[in-house]
């Protein structure tokens, strides 16, 4: 079904064309043959292919299930992305499933927000509370009635994952609010944007064949990304891949690198500009490539040279020796397959978009793009998508935060701006409800105090999640979701040099009274659809015009045909939709392979070869998708349209970005560790054994001077808040910087293992945004530290 989008003011972005089936389970399914068998005395063992949900990577594994209990998670040798491995978090996934603190049944708030008083409710009661509210909070129906069916009064958010699109479809397309925020603005938004706007892709770094790697601000030994981490550290140190690590901190990646430059935080752009200066000035760049594919090279050349971005200039800003910058630039261009690694994670500094542009351009100057050993575009195996019958609401207003950044993203916004505009009351219409899923802004979004105020300001907060996070504690209705090991997820396509499609299958049935996200979406839709439709009939003049004089059955027909029926997304279960899609596209045999192995790609049976006990070959080298762009490749050096938005069309350094820390203060930097992801894994008892709390890294000499020893209690204070944390004096950090791991210091007492351990960096990171997309700037906060 296609729907015309023209006449009404609703969607500024494109209508996402996908449909995700809800999953309903009948009693047949609950007591399937398998389960019946398991009642017999003999142990029944099976290996179920799953995709890990402990972080963003989606590595593949097999769950060893004995008598309906998952005993062990093993790596899956068939997936080219995860290359037969599971990291510590992947291994510990069992303890997310069996976490005793899990949300087990729906909850309705009976106390005040934040005090943790809830009553256990049935799913019907919970949906009812969302609709009609209780004596403690308003329901969505009343709110929409008071707002005259302006659906934009509902905000929603969702963290990364395979069921995220389903939530976007329900909230954005069907219920019809444009006010959406997700993890992207506290994650790699500007990185993606910088690369897309320069070379047309974020791309994949072919680290299996790269021979010279500059990795700056990315920490692949501790922030594991597959397959990069595996490819990188099997070939480093004299084994074909030279690694130059740029990081303010001596990380485990630095420990495995050939050279390390401790850069001043937030000055990477100056470093890249100086590298660029050297290769342009000395004409070391790939001239043939640049002549063929670069857009605006002469402008860029003039720009770089006239601004005098010399290594000597950069030395003063970055703290990296000019000779070393020069040497690195020359080595990079002399290498056969050099890569300036794109990196991921969050925005470091306000210049982040320009930094990523400069990095992509520098890569372009080497010509090492769209080819083996370079940054490649790869290929994505296409899966069919179904259209959504999205209704048009006349009363819905457009996003309220689009004018606050230079380039408003078309679907999601900036968390900080979204929150702050509402807090300051600058939104043109009231935003009164938040529907949240798998997201913990109390930990993820800088300035937790403001996030708490924001949540308190809402009339209704709904949360769908697995664990009672800090954010959950400010919600009115809490819906418990099945973890990734208890659900079959929509089949996904992994685009890469070695592409594949993958399917997560439920290893066990949902525990307690939890339900899979798609079932929750479906039931929520069933419960909300008619009452919300009545509200639309009451206020929506377009609908009133259209339905004037219609009899009830004609109105019902109109409601269904025009997509107001929220439940029409859920005609198929996830399993049915996956099966239909795969069989339709690749045939029965492909479906069989996918069901057994969790992975499928054309010719998998022919191509996949075991090399030894540890490793496989997934595609023969001549079948890999190294070069896919060919003549369509472009490297946009001078992006003139950006100037119209008030953004530098070519990466330019501005002195306001210089690294400055007042005497006696420290620059706060934050990051990740291989043994946990974010706040979501802090309650995992297995991972807790490895890393129980976070410490404050402080320079050893500074600590000595101040009489600070390991384990001492420190107070760290910024302009927005303060934390208490234990000291970890180390030589691995510069004298005017401190570091702490992100994700600790949760205040939810319901997460018993995590509670009371460490400090929450979001409490002290100032809520600054970068001006192009509104990404949260993580490394521009100066703090005071004192022993307490």
């Amino acid at each position, binding site marked *: 079904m296609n729907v015309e989008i023209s006449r009404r003011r609703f969607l500024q972005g494109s209508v996402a064309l996908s449909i995700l089936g809800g999953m309903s389970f009948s009693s047949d399914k609950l007591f399937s043959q398998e389960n019946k068998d398991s009642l017999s005395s003999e142990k029944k063992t099976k290996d179920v292919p799953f995709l890990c949900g402990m972080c963003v990577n989606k590595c593949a594994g097999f769950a060893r299930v004995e008598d309906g209990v998952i005993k062990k998670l093993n790596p899956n040798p068939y997936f080219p992305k995860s290359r037969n491995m599971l990291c510590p978090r992947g291994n510990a996934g069992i303890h997310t499933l069996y976490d005793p603190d899990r949300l087990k049944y729906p909850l309705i708030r009976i106390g005040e927000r934040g005090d943790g008083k809830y009553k256990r409710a049935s799913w019907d009661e919970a949906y009812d509370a969302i609709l009609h509210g209780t004596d403690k909070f308003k329901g969505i129906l009343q709110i929409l009635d008071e707002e005259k069916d302006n659906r934009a009064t509902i905000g929603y958010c969702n963290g990364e994952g395979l069921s995220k699109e389903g939530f976007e479809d329900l909230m954005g397309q069907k219920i019809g609010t444009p006010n959406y925020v997700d993890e992207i603005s506290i994650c790699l938004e500007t990185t993606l944007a910088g690369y897309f706007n320069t070379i047309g892709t974020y791309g994949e770094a072919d680290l299996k064949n790269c021979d010279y790697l500059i990795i700056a601000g990315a920490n692949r030994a501790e922030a594991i990304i597959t397959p990069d981490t595996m490819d990188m550290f*099997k070939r480093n140190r004299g*084994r074909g891949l030279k690694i130059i690590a740029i990081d303010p901190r001596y990380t485990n990646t630095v420990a495995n690198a050939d050279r390390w430059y401790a850069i001043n935080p937030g000055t990477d752009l100056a470093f890249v500009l100086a590298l660029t200066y050297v290769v342009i000035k000395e004409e070391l760049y790939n001239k043939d490539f640049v002549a063929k594919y670069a857009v605006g090279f002469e402008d860029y050349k003039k720009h770089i040279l006239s601004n005098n971005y010399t290594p000597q200039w950069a030395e003063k800003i970055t703290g990296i020796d000019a000779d070393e910058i020069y040497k690195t630039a020359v080595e990079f261009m002399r290498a056969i397959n050099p890569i300036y690694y794109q990196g991921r994670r969050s925005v470091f500094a306000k210049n982040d978009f320009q930094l990523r542009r400069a990095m992509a351009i520098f890569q372009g100057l080497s010509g090492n793009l769209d080819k083996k050993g370079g940054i490649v575009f790869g290929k994505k195996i296409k899966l069919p998508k179904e259209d959504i019958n999205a209704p048009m609401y006349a009363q819905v207003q457009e996003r309220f935060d689009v004018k606050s950044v230079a380039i408003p993203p078309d679907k999601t916004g900036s968390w900080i701006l979204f929150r702050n505009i509402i807090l300051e009351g600058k939104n043109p219409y009231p935003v009164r409800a938040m529907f949240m899923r798998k997201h913990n802004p109390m930990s993820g979004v800088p300035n937790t105090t403001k996030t708490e105020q924001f949540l308190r300001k809402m009339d209704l907060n709904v949360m769908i999640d697995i664990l009672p996070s800090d954010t959950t504690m400010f919600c009115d209705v809490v819906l418990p979701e099945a973890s990734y090991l208890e659900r079959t997820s929509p089949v996904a396509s992994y685009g890469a040099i070695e592409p594949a499609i993958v399917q997560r299958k439920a290893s066990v049935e949902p525990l307690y009274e939890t339900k899979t996200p798609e079932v929750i979406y479906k039931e929520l839709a069933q419960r909300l659809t008619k009452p919300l439709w009545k509200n639309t009939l009451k206020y929506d003049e377009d609908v009133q015009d259209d339905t004037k004089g219609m009899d009830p059955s004609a109105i019902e027909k109109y409601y269904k045909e025009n997509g107001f029926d929220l439940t029409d997304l859920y005609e198929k279960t996830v399993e049915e939709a996956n099966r239909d899609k795969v069989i339709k596209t690749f045939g029965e045999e492909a479906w069989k392979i996918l069901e057994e192995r969790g992975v499928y790609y054309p010719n998998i049976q022919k191509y996949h070869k075991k090399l030894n006990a540890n490793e496989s070959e997934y595609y023969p080298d001549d079948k890999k998708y190294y070069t896919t762009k060919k003549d369509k490749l472009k490297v946009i050096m001078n992006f003139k349209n950006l100037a119209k938005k008030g953004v530098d069309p070519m990466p330019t350094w501005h002195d306001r970005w210089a690294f400055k820390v007042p005497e006696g203060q420290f620059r706060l930097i934050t990051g990740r560790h291989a043994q946990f992801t974010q706040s979501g894994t802090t309650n995992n008892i297995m991972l807790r054994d490895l890393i129980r709390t976070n410490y404050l890294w402080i320079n050893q000499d500074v600590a000595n001077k101040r009489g600070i020893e390991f384990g001492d209690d420190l107070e760290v204070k910024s302009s927005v808040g303060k934390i208490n944390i234990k000291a970890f004096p180390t030589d691995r950090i510069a004298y005017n910087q401190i570091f702490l791991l992100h994700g600790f210091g949760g205040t939810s007492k319901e997460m018993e293992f995590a509670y009371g351990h460490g400090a929450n960096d979001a409490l002290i990171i100032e809520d600054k945004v970068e001006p192009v997309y509104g990404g949260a700037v993580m490394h521009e906060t100066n703090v005071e530290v004192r022993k307490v």
Partner: protein
Amino acid sequence: MNYAMVLDYQNCINCKACEVACKEQNNVELGADKQRIWVGQTDNVIFGNLFVNFYPSQCNHCLDAPCVDVCPTQASHFVEGGLVLVDQKKCILCKGCMEACPYDARFVDDERVAVDKCTFCYDTRILKGETTTACQATCPTKVRMFGDLDDENGDVIQLLKQRKFFVLKAKEGTVPKLFYLVPENDEEYALQSIGHNNKIYTWDEMSPIIEAAKAKRSKQWKKS
């Protein structure tokens, strides 16, 4: 059959996937100090330059194992394949084996009230037909290769014939079976990560040592 492990420790990034996989596979007691396997870390400064080395490790399953000799109840014993195991029912927690072990590979399992240590997943995987240990299988960078020293065509022997290697605390004379591959093409890293006194072996040099120790002790290998 003579089980051993080759470690390309140069690949290790200290992510500890192996430790978690081991705990999950073998139901190792929870607790930071209850580890059958671990990643050792040295953290140092040479001439003003920081360096950090990682040494993934576990029980060496020594062919001439002192822990077996000191055990008064024969709880510590050899089995077929030259593995050193602990019969936890026989263990009286005298901790003599913990003292005798040069590698500090043993700890007290407070739940089973017995000494515990790495088994090369003998009971949980190998006897069930698997050919890899949990730590090996899960490793992102594929540090470990488990196998049989008597299998001339196996991955382990192939690696040991191609590469030079060292063992930890060779001077203890226990004939350990964790073989650490010497980093190739990076002398600086090799120097910095291998102790000055460590002897570097080729398989031709190591093979007779192994055979002698095996001849001496294999009579004690119990059939499982």
